[in-house]
């Protein structure tokens, strides 16, 4: 099964995705092939509706492609069943959403700890890890706050911590700064860059923001569900 995938953590091979909207078929992706190397800070750019979110969903194991293959670390995950995909996600994928998506009834601590509890880590170890990362993202004081007691930027920081604390192979962020003002967005971007450097996690970020594109190592450009350009920043 493993192909020439030694240093690619993600490999899409001719992936298509069709949605059935009543009688009409929507081709969200029309045969996308791309490969992302380990530890790379990657962005997907393109106009609204170009297929960025769909691509990220497929990479993150949230939805399956209509046709084509997806290899994560050389393993084809399109054949996984629902349960196996869930286990795959909890171990390998960290999600950062545009709308933060914290669990409202959990404190900041619990939101982050949840990722580790899913991995059956001992409580003591969880505590240490969560405190560590809360310090790292500069939210040590807010450990027992609920999401509704935090600002947008703080919430996104917690969400980033939640995605990173389990040390996943891939961090998937769908327009993570779109709901934040530009200054906060810039700070969040800085934090992600820093964590990418420190922890060596692979970031895949869909974005409209020129700022984000600038700092990215690698950029993929989509239009109408097809990859039209890709390049590496110096």
């Amino acid at each position, binding site marked *: 099964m493993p192909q020439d995938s030694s240093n690619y953590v993600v490999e899409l091979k001719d992936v298509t995705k069709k949605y059935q909207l009543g009688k009409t078929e929507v081709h969200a992706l029309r045969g996308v092939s791309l490969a992302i190397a380990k530890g790379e800070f990657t962005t997907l750019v393109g106009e609204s509706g170009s297929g960025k979110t769909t691509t990220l*969903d497929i990479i*993150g194991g*949230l*939805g399956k492609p209509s046709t084509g293959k997806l290899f994560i670390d050389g393993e084809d995950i399109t054949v996984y069943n*629902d*349960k196996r995909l*869930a*286990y*795959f*996600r*909890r*171990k390998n*994928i960290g*999600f950062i*959403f545009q*709308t933060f*998506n*914290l*669990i*409202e*009834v*959990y404190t900041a601590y*619990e939101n982050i700890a*949840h*990722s580790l*509890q*899913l991995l059956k880590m001992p409580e003591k170890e969880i505590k240490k890890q969560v405190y560590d990362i809360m310090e790292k993202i500069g939210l040590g004081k807010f450990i027992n706050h609920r999401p509704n007691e935090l600002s947008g930027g703080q919430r996104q920081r917690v969400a980033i911590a*939640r995605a990173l604390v389990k040390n996943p192979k891939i961090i998937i962020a769908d327009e993570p700064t779109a709901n934040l003002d530009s200054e906060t967005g810039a700070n969040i971007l800085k934090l992600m860059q820093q964590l990418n450097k420190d922890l060596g996690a692979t970031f895949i970020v869909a974005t409209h923001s020129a700022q984000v594109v600038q700092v990215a190592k690698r950029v993929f450009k989509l239009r109408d569900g097809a990859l039209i350009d890709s390049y590496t920043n110096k």
Partner: protein
Amino acid sequence: MLETQKEFMITVSCIILLILTTIFLFNRSILVLAARNIIKNKRRTFILLCVIVSGLAGLMLFFGFADDSLHGLREATISSGLGHIQVYQKGYRAAAMPDKINFNIPNYREIVGIFESDAELKKYVKGMAADLDMSGLIAGHGKSTVFVGKGVDTQNFKVMNAGDEITEGKPLEHTDVFVKPEQKELTNEFEEMFEGFPVPGQDGAEKKDAPKDDKPKQEIWKDSTIEKRAANAEAAMDDALLGDGLKNALNAKLGDALTLVVSTKSGALNALDINVRGVILGVETSYNDTIVKIPMQYAWKLMGREDVSKICILLHKTEFLDLAYRRVQELVKEKNLNLETSTWVEEARMYQKVSSLLHDIFGSISFIIVLVVTFSIANAMMMSVMERTREIGTLRALGNTKNEILRLFMTEGFVIGLMGGVLSMVVGIAISIFMNDVVGGIPMAPPPGTSKAFIAHFRVVNNPLIWCITFNLAVFAAFISSILPAKKASNMEIVESIRYV
């Protein structure tokens, strides 16, 4: 319901509850999330608890009311001479009415002796008595009607017949004295009272005039004096107790001489006079309209035989029935007695009817209540699932499985059910205590087929079966109704639900 059935019900439901508890409360992180959501959605939780409590506390009270009525009827039936356990000659119960008499027990003293000398049975038994069933005509004051009579054991009479309310006169006493009814009419006491007055009944003319002259005196003479005298009279062999309805039908009074007519063993008619010593009021109207109880010896004289229809065994408590009955059956087998046995339930037709009626009503009401509660909970849970679509999608994205999402919502239902169950019990018990002890019960008219008005109480406090049923129905309803919403939650499309606004 029998004790063993109760215990069985309670045990089974506890086991089910234990299993559910381990399934649903075992996963700590799911439990925490469920608990947090229950606390956070205060409105939903409050409404759900209100629905459960109003439904199930009401059910609990209804059950307590029905159980109280049944309990009263049960004890009254048992203590109307029937006892808890009946022993017959083999074939008696299957025989047709007129043939039953051929299956009477001749050697009943011997059998009673066997039962009385058994050490184990002794622990449960309060009293034992034989009776002789008979029926025929009862006549007096120019009227006659049918009666259903019993020759009863006068020695144990009060113990065995405590459920018959004596509305006038006195119960039967143990005695060998035989006083002719006619003799009673002229006693010293009577003559002393009317000393100096012309005594009515001694002279035909005066008898006619006296009442006209002095009506109040006649009232005293008729209604008070003789009855008082009769009520204080020494017990006699020909004493009889009449059902309240029968007394009214015959216009009979205490101290009256009435005649019983029956057909005897040989088929001939036989008649004997009885003296009304007391009037009894049992639960059933049909019983009160027909019953005549006379001492056994007198019944033998009337029937021209010396045997009994059955032996009735009264226990200290109805709860002993299972154990005592088992022992009686063992004894019958061990001693190779030609006997068959029954329990009071089989003989208490009124009780059976009322019981099955109440059970049907209870069954349908609880079904409706559980249905309403279930739908209300399902509806609220479904709304909650929709509201939390994004949370569900997020949990799935983070790696929670479908099964875990399913369990999350089932746990919420289960926990709400537990809370509702406990609260229903507390509220139900509190209301029952209030109604029983503060309000003093609810006065009720006599139920159909019965003669006694009564005060309804709610047998809830000392009734673990009711607690058990209430609690289980609450948990059951909450649990069942969360299945569908939980299924919906677990089957949500992740990509759509994480972006749901």
